Each structure stands twice: as C-alpha cells, then as structure tokens.
C-alpha cells in the first residue's frame, strides 16, 4: 500500500459542509492520491485515437489542440442529438439535492463537487451558457459559465472521481443518471486526447490480445492448464477445460482477472469444478478471453469495438449460446448494450440448460446467461450435491456489485446460491445492499495505485457497512461477483476492516460441491474444512 495515505482515523474525519462561496466561484486543485495518471500515448495511438501525447494532469499546460473549444462544442452538440438521456438530464434537474449524500465519493470525501448534482453541473453549466436561450442571454445569472482550460481540468478530476455506479439515479425523482453524464464527459475529453491510462491501456491490450491484461494465447492456455492441475491437487479429480473448441455447446467468457489474480482465481477454480461436475459441453476462447470491457469506461465506440469479439467468436466456434462469469461492469455491457451494439445474435440458439432443460427466456435475444442464473437453476433442480458445512469456517456477507444490481437486477440469484452453499450468511444494513448497494470505490477504471486515497475514501461507505456485520456477526468473508471488487476490495478491507477476506461466489459453490471421485479435506485456499476439525459453530 502506498505510504502517502493518511491513517483511517484521519481519513474518516469528513466535513460535509461546503464553502460559503457559490460553487461557480469555488476553485479546485489536483490533490495527490486522488487522481489517475494520463494515458500512455502508445496505447492511444494503437487504438487509432487522436491527439496522443504524454500527459501529466499535474502539469499546468495540457497542450490542448488548437481548436479544442470547437471540438468540445461539436462533440457535445453531437451527443445531445444521439443521447436523449444527456439532452433530458441537461435540462430537467431541479437541484433538489436528493442525490447529494447518496454518492460514495461525497460520503467519503465531503468534497461538494462530488455531489452527483454538482458533478453534472460541471457539464451543465457549460451547456447552459452555450446551448440554451436563457444561458446565452443571461450568462452567469442563468447558471452558465465559460468553457475554459480550467473547466477541462475540473472535468478530468471529477469525471474520474465517479465510478458510474448509478446509485444516485436510484434516488433521483427523474432518474437522472450521473453515469450517463460521466460517460459523456469522458467521451468529450477523449476527443482532446485526454484519458486515464488505467482505462486506455487495458482497452488497447484487450483490442489486440483479447483481454485487458495482454495475455497472449499460449499464456491463456498455460493459465487454464495450471488451474486444472491445481484443482486436481485440491480435489483429486482430473478435469479438462477445452479452449477454442469448435462445436461446443456453450462459449464461456470470464473477466481476465479470473484466471490471473487472487482471489478471483478461486472463483475460476469454482467454475471449472462445477462445469466438470455437471458435464457441461463448453469452451473457452483465447480471442474472446475477456468479458470485462474497459471500453465502457472510455467511450461507447470503444465499448462496441471490444465487445464485438464475443459474438464473432461464438459464431466462429459454432456454439449454441454463451455463459458469462462473475463480473459487474461486464454484465452491464452484456445486459444493456451488447445485443443492441453487436447483435442480433441470430446465429445462436435460445439458451437452454442442457442439464436441467430450463429455458432462459430472459436471455432469449442476447443468448447470454449469467453464471449465477445458470448455477441457481442447477441448485433449484437438485442437479448438484452440496455440503454447505464445508464453508462453515466462513461467515459471509454479500456485496452486490453496482452494475449487476442497478443495471440488471440480479439480486436474488446470488443470494439463493449463497443460502445453499454456506450456513452463515449475514446481510449488511438494508440501505447498503441490493439496488442501494455502495460501490467498492474503484470501479470504472479508477482502481489504480496512484488514486489510492480517492479509492479508500470512495470505498468508505461500503467498508463501514462491512465493519458493521464484521463486529455484529463476526463476518470474515466479503463475497462478491465482480472482478473489480475482487481486485480492489482486499485493499479496502485491509485499510478499513482488517480481518475480512474477499471471495468469489463460485469459490463457495466449489467448496460446497460434492464431486464424484473427490478426495479432499481443504477448501480451494487449502484451508481445512470446518467440519474436519472442531467447529466453533457446531
């Protein structure tokens, strides 16, 4: 962990009172630890994007292209036509303030410009002055302000202090969604060659190699084979995991961290064990070796460019339908964008579970099923044997990821699974779960090291809720179904709630899964099953 960051006791002293001056007069500056570094020009170039240049946000001169104002105005005009969301959200906010204390970044920092309403006003003030009659006529009196290089910097700072989690849009009486505003703001900045490297470089990697981490085909194969070997060591069961296999029934797509990082990896082992046990005919793909999509955090076009490979590969391999692994923003893309952008998937079949015969009617058009839907259906139909006591060493709480809850409504599937695979499941307080869930604080490309203070601040509301169940119910495992969560929550827990581990849902599934021919006495982390020793809970 970076040594720049203050201690938790210090960071949790938060003043929510803004200054006396009206916000149009309030200044801001880049504060170390709360912003991300600019894009690597190589990555910008390799994606064929304009104005690639070495870029340090802390520099005074951002080397904006000569006609930068025109570019922003054109870009905004274009997007107002293309997105009713943007046009309506620019026009109808009444600044009632209901969203203000719903944002994890505001709750964790007290910075008034992190109130969703004000984050949107950063863009809206320019829109008012340059695009509305009242603003053109009355200027500042109508809440308009001039577009200056300082405004561009402010956009960069605050549109990359929003994780596009959409919690504010749940509470807004008009459903104004700050994620839309942030997305548009980021797109506008990209028109000037301005972006953050933690988004641009993974996107460039994904474009070329098929995954964000830049793992080459043979590396992918090694990882999968390594996992198969690990699973054999752990369970005594030898499994096969096909790659690029033509004619398989199902294409399985996961976020790349699943086969490369911990604790994701335990969930990956979980998928392998489960698919083996039920005898699913599936294949991985090296070309479509990423379900996550950092394009979503970049621009609509980039999202489409990266997402295209999933359908393309499903077609090439001749599969019938697709299953997607545990990931948050990946599922926002798959659920709300993929079919529209890269469909129709008329070369696939309506998904039917070959094990239970269940028809996944809700995925009739997109033909892609969430692993939790698949597994919950297996459990409901009694197709797998589970021993939940094997997870008795875990006292579990569940973190809904922003995108699967507010961009999909996948709330009950993971809970149904959890109740069947473990005996100790405790919910966090009701205002912090389901559609009101709090972001990990590191989503939408902000999960980098240089941004650590902002992440710890943004994750504070989530951590505070975890601490509650940790103290009340001795919860020691924060279970989640999102790759970014798994990558960043461990740091958040170490900082705010030491003693709580982070795990994947399918890790718990595989722990509980009684496999044919197994010989095992430990969970996937090589910890002895609780029922093998004297359990405290027994």
């Amino acid at each position, binding site marked *: 962990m970076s040594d720049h960051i203050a201690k938790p006791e210090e960071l*949790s002293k938060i003043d929510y*009172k*803004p*200054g006396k001056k009206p*916000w149009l007069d309030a200044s801001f500056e880049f504060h170390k630890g709360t912003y991300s570094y600019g894009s690597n020009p190589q990555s910008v170039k390799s994606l064929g994007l304009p104005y690639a240049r070495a870029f340090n946000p802390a520099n005074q001169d951002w080397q904006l292209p000569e006609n930068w104002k025109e570019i922003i105005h054109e870009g905004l005009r274009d997007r*107002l036509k*293309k*997105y*009713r*969301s943007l046009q309506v959200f620019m*026009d*109808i906010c*009444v*600044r*009632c*303030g209901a969203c*203000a*204390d*719903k944002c994890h970044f505001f*709750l964790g920092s007290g910075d*008034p410009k992190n109130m969703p*309403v004000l984050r949107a*006003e950063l863009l809206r003030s320019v829109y008012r002055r340059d695009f509305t009659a009242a603003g053109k006529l009355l200027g500042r009196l109508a809440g308009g302000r001039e577009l200056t290089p300082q405004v561009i910097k402010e956009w960069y700072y605050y549109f990359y202090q929003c994780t596009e989690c959409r919690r504010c*849009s*749940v*509470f807004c*009486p*008009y459903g104004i*969604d700050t994620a*839309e505003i942030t997305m548009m703001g980021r797109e506008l900045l990209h028109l000037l060659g301005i972006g953050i490297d933690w988004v641009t470089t993974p996107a460039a990697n994904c474009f*070329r190699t098929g995954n964000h981490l830049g793992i*080459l*085909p*043979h590396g992918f*194969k*090694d990882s999968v084979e390594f996992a198969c070997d690990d699973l054999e060591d752990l369970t005594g069961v030898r499994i096969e995991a096909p790659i690029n296999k033509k004619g398989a029934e199902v294409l399985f797509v996961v976020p790349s961290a699943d086969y490369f990082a911990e604790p994701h990896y335990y969930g990956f082992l979980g998928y392998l064990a489960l698919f083996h046990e039920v005898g699913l005919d599936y294949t991985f793909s*090296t070309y479509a070796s990423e379900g996550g999509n950092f394009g979503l955090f970049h621009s609509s076009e980039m999202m489409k*460019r990266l997402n*295209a490979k999933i359908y*393309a590969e499903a077609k090439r391999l001749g599969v019938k339908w697709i299953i997607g692994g545990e990931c948050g923003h990946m599922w926002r893309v798959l659920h*709300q964008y993929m*079919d*529209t952008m890269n469909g129709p998937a008329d070369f696939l079949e309506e998904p039917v579970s070959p094990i239970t015969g*269940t028809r996944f009617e*809700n*995925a009739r058009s*997109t033909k*892609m099923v969430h692993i939790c839907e698949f597994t*919950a*259906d297996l459990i409901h139909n009694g197709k797998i044997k589970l021993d939940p006591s094997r997870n008795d060493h875990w006292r579990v709480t569940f973190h809904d990821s922003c995108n699967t*809850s507010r*961009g*999909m*409504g*996948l*709330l*009950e599937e993971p809970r149904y699974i959890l109740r069947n695979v473990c005996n100790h499941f405790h919910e966090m307080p009701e205002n*912090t779960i389901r559609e009101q869930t709090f972001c990990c604080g590191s989503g939408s490309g902000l999960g980098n090291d240089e941004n650590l203070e902002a992440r710890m601040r943004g994750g*504070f*509301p989530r951590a505070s809720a975890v601490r509650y169940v940790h103290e009340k119910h001795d919860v020691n495992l924060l279970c989640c179904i999102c790759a970014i969560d798994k990558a960043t929550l461990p740091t958040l827990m170490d900082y705010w709630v030491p003693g709580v581990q982070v795990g994947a849902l399918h890790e718990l599934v595989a722990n509980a899964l009684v496999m044919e021919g197994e010989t095992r006495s430990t969970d996937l982390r090589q910890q002895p099953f609780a029922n093998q020793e004297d359990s405290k809970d027994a």
Partner: protein
Amino acid sequence: MNALLAALAVGVLFAIVLFGVAGANLQFVFGVVVPYGAVALFLLGFAYRVLKWAGSAVPFRITTTCGQQKTLPFLKNDNLENPHNLIGVVGRMALEVLFFRSLFRNTKAKLKEGGRLVYGRDKWLWAGAVAFHWTFLIVLLRHLRFFAEPVPSFVLALQSLDGLFKIGVPVFYFTGAILLASVTYLFLRRVVIPQLSFISLMADYFPLFLIMAIAGSGILMRHFYKVDLVAVKQLTMGLIRFQPEIPDGIGFLFFAHLFFVSALFAYFPFSKLMHLGGVFLSPTRNLAGNSRQRRHVNPWNYAVKTHTYEEYEDEFREVMRNAGLPLEKAE
C-alpha cells in the same frame, strides 16, 4: 445572493404590474395581451422542448433497475421496480409521476463517532414535494371555475372537499395554505441546508418566489382585499372565448395575480420547470429492463473498427501452433 437576486426579480415584476395597472391604467395590456402572450409562449415553448427531446435518439436501454429482474421462475420478479413489460413500465411511471416513488426512498446519511456511516429515513423532502405538487394541481383545477360556465361538477366537488370544514366566509381552502406552506419549506431548505445553498442557482429560487407571490396574492384576494369575482369571471370567460373585454371595477390585486401567473407560464418552457415534461422521457425510468429478452435497436448504430479473429490469428499463429491451439489457417 442568488436568492436575493431572485427575490428582486419578482419584486421587479410586481413593480411592472403596479406601474402598468395602477399607474398607467394599462388594464387591457395586463388583462389580455400579457396572458395571451404568456400562454402562447408556454404552449409553443413546451411543445418545442418536448419535440427537441423526442428528436434525440434513445440508443440503449439504460433502465436503472431497482428490484429483482425477471429470470428463473422460482425467483419473483419485481415488475414495478424492474419492469420487464409495458404494464410494469406504466406502473413504474405512474408511481414515479403521481407519488414520487424515487424521492420516497430518500435517506439521510450521518457520520457517527468512530467513523461509522448510518442512514436514516428522510421523508421531509418527499412530503414537501408531494404536498406542493398535489396542492398546486388542485388549486389549478379549482380555477377551472373561472373558465367554464356552468362550472363542471368535478370542480365543484373539489371545491367542497377542499373547504370541507367550512371555516370562514368565503370558505377557506386548505390547498392554498398548504401550497404556500410547502413552497416556503422548499425555499427554506435551500437556505438552511449548506449543501443545497451551495448548489442553488437564481433559477432555483426564482420560481419558488414567483409561486409564493401567486399563492399569496390569491389568498389575499380571496380573504382580505376582495376583488369583484363576477367581473373577474367576465374577463376570464372573455379570454377563453377569444372575445376579450376588461370589465370595470376589478381590483389591482387581481392584475398582480394574473401577471405573476403569466410570468410563470412564460418562464416555464425556458426553465427547470420543464421537469414536468421531462420526467416522462427519462430513459432510466421509462424503459423496461428486459434488454436480453427483447433486442433494442440503436438508430445510429454504425460499424466500428474491430480486431477480427483473422487478424488475431495472423499475429499470434506461431505461438498458438506451438501451444497446440487449433488454427483456422495452417499459415
């Protein structure tokens, strides 16, 4: 500062009507020309704004889902919070528009000792908003008695319900008082809550003051400085029949009331008050969350540069062959 400017603006409006009617005797201008102009501006402006919104595309189905999706038959779908069909969407919108469902969720976060965040229920804003909008609607509907002869029965029913307790002569209408009280509350919270006063623009205070002036002048006119109602109705019926006339003896207060109302109508389409129309067009609320079930079409979807499998295999053929991965082309 923004509040002062807004109050000043309403003061200027009052000065204009005072000077115009009481000073310059321009009853026809303020009784006929201004109201006609304001209503025309309102209708045209409103239509323009809505058409402009409608002219923007809805490329994606970006429903904000606030409940369980429709998936497996044994998991209950919450069709009002995460609609999967038209009935669900209509129900969700009705709850939103009529009862301010989302605002009802409102919570208030508090940071406790030891750095613990807690969330309390906070229905005040919801209650204030519901009281304000509903009473405004009822007051507006009651005013139909000035624009129809005979007065429609539902208006009479509204009136008698509103004055149920028959306090005072003429009967005191509760809605008028609640309207004034709630609009005052909506103003006060903007001044008292620091975050709100930080974000509030002149455009947030102005309509509140204007509505206070409208409600205030209305109540004054009814109970304190009475105007000639027969003459008023003669004027309003003239307006509605496009045979405008200015009867004698209508008090000044009426013209002030009418001018404030006209100002509100004229201002409406150029302001945030357009949330009245916009709430119906909000894509996070008025679309079903069934994107995987029914394909949504983006009217401006265009082809993008992708990295095809062929290009991918061309670049990585060597390592793929060495790793024993199947290939499309041997070389």
